[in-house]
């Protein structure tokens, strides 16, 4: 499968902090890639870099970003702006901060069609209502005249999705799209996203929640302290993780439906990006850590077909067996 987006060895610095330290990922049509990590892992910065939307203090310091054969790092601001919204769209965790509170929702979605497609007012409005209906907003013709604060959290996120998908982008980047939502509403939004992916949309989901990732993605990149520590197909990675951090994250994730699995914590705390441990950044929290881990930062290497791990002892982690569904001692 040819990749639409290919990111190689991306590095982003945030002031003095090396927030992303060499991350590679790619996504093809009609597939979903998940970037998983906890706060401060660099997962959001990686995707913002793709769109050229990094905050002012942050900049890409190394690596390449290719979109459909084009080198995005060589593109100017105008070219990137053209790409955003038409070819690549993005949605965020908090839809309220991404919508203008003083304009109706219908007007804001219609703006996409007026600005980018040059449609007239009435036609833009008609298309906006269509887009709202498409994402399951009931009574869209009437709701188009409402303001963002008149919508519930779930409906607002639908509005954001309608806006993001209005111009039929080929890639949607969704940063924690359901984190602010109730579980029953989250289930609705994830189902909607899965449907669009089956219809051909490429997606990158950024999430801290392995359960949400399990419901949406085909492949996963796990990030820790600015690095990709593991990547691979969902089924492989979830069955038998190849990095101790993934293993720990699996064991820490609560499950409402599995009586046998009590969440196990990972000892210690995530490191401060400005004062990373020597060697492997995960070693102070790692049950597999040995002397070598304290001095030598492991390369991300292929450990099985389609799978990478940045652990000196990945084979040992793999042979240890799955964290999930394993009877506890």
């Amino acid at each position, binding site marked *: 499968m040819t990749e639409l987006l290919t990111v190689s060895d991306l590095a982003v610095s945030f002031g003095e902090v090396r927030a992303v330290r060499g991350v590679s990922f790619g996504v093809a049509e009609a597939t979903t890639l998940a970037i998983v990590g906890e706060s401060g892992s660099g997962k959001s910065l990686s995707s913002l870099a793709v769109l050229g939307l990094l905050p002012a203090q942050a900049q890409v310091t190394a690596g390449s970003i290719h979109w459909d054969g084009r080198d995005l790092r060589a593109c100017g601001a105008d070219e990137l702006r053209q790409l955003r919204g038409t070819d690549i769209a993005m949605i965020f965790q908090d839809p309220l901060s991404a919508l203008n509170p003083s304009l109706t929702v219908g007007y804001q979605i219609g703006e996409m069609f007026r600005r980018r497609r040059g449609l007239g007012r009435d036609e833009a409005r008609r298309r906006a209502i269509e887009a709202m209906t498409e994402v399951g907003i009931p009574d869209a013709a009437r709701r188009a005249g409402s303001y963002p604060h008149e919508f519930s959290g779930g409906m607002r996120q639908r509005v954001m999705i309608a806006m993001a998908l209005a111009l039929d982008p080929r890639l949607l980047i969704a940063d924690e799209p359901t984190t602010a939502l109730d579980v029953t509403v989250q289930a609705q939004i994830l189902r909607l996203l899965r449907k669009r992916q089956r219809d051909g949309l490429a997606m990158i989901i950024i999430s801290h929640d392995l359960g949400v990732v*399990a419901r949406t993605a085909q492949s996963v990149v796990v990030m820790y302290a600015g690095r990709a520590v593991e990547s691979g197909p969902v089924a492989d990675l*979830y069955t038998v993780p190849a990095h101790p951090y993934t293993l720990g994250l699996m064991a820490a994730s609560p499950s409402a439906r*599995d009586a046998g699995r009590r969440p196990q914590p990972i000892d210690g705390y995530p490191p401060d990006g400005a004062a990373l441990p020597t060697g492997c950044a995960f070693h102070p929290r790692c049950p597999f850590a040995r002397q070598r881990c304290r001095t030598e930062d492991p390369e991300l290497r292929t450990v099985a077909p389609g799978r990478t791990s940045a652990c000196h002892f990945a084979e040992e982690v793999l042979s240890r067996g799955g964290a999930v569904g394993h009877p506890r001692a």
Partner: protein
Amino acid sequence: MAAQSDTPVLELVDLVAGYRSRQGPLGRSRAVRAVAGVNLAVRAGETVCLVGESGCGKSTVARAVVSLLRPIAGEVRFDGRDVTALDRAGRRDLRRQVQLVFQDPYASLNPKMTVHDLLSEAWRIHPGIVPRGDWDAEVAALLERVGLNPGHATRYPHQFSGGQRQRISIARALAVRPRLIVCDEPVSALDVSIQAQILNLLARLQRELGVAYLFITHDLGVVRHFADRVAVMHLGTIVESGQTEQVYERPAHPYTQALLSAAPSVDDWRAQEGEEIVLRGDVPSPLDPPSGCRFHTRCWKARDLCRAEEPALVRRDTDHPVACHFATDAHVVAADGH
């Protein structure tokens, strides 16, 4: 599980509570009964979880329990006594016996106070718990108890990570030796790898000190291994309650079934499309709850009776109480999840 006495530490009896809400700048304010008749008991040394989605009234329950809100009707009883009937000294004692741990450890700790001051503040307000000369030693003991370095008592909250700050919040709650801690989403703001640390800490403190928890959360996964009993709340009422395993293994209310089905789990990569129950539409507004059963607008089992009559929370050929007229009807699998 610690020994449980007969009189509950906390008892909610037909509790009705809420707040006034104004619609628009000139609108008339009206009473929102966010909690519309709740019965719940928490015994000494026990953990009871109140689970529900936003707007279900779970935080209003918490506010009523810690006397930040006066009930509209019904009673909040502590040790068998109605808390609204307490005299000044009784109220003061209640504020010591019942402590609150909040979701956001960034907002709930005064950034200008050292850890030592945060923990000893309550001893100033409630003299007689710890003599002044013992404050330093007691602060060190508390920090050690919650897994923090006792040498860090002179540091400020910003010098700690989120998980460490939540440990400070817990130490502060413990400082006055309470019998009940109301935990309002205490791990929701924390990274997954840290959540289990805090839950394990709370469980250990309960074993060591016998403190009871009323644990309020939206996350069904979190409470499964933590709660002794669970009450599921929806739009101001409890729709199902029981021992944790009863509710999780044999959920009888359609709303509980939907919640359990919708909660994402790491095993879900095996799931087939359409396998989970996806409810239609939004949670109705608590300003204007539906007639009869408040869940009927989103329920795939709903019939005329549900629109007319509110079901009581009682056993219905189930091993635990459930507020659904058709709880024991053959499990209707909704077409396409609806």
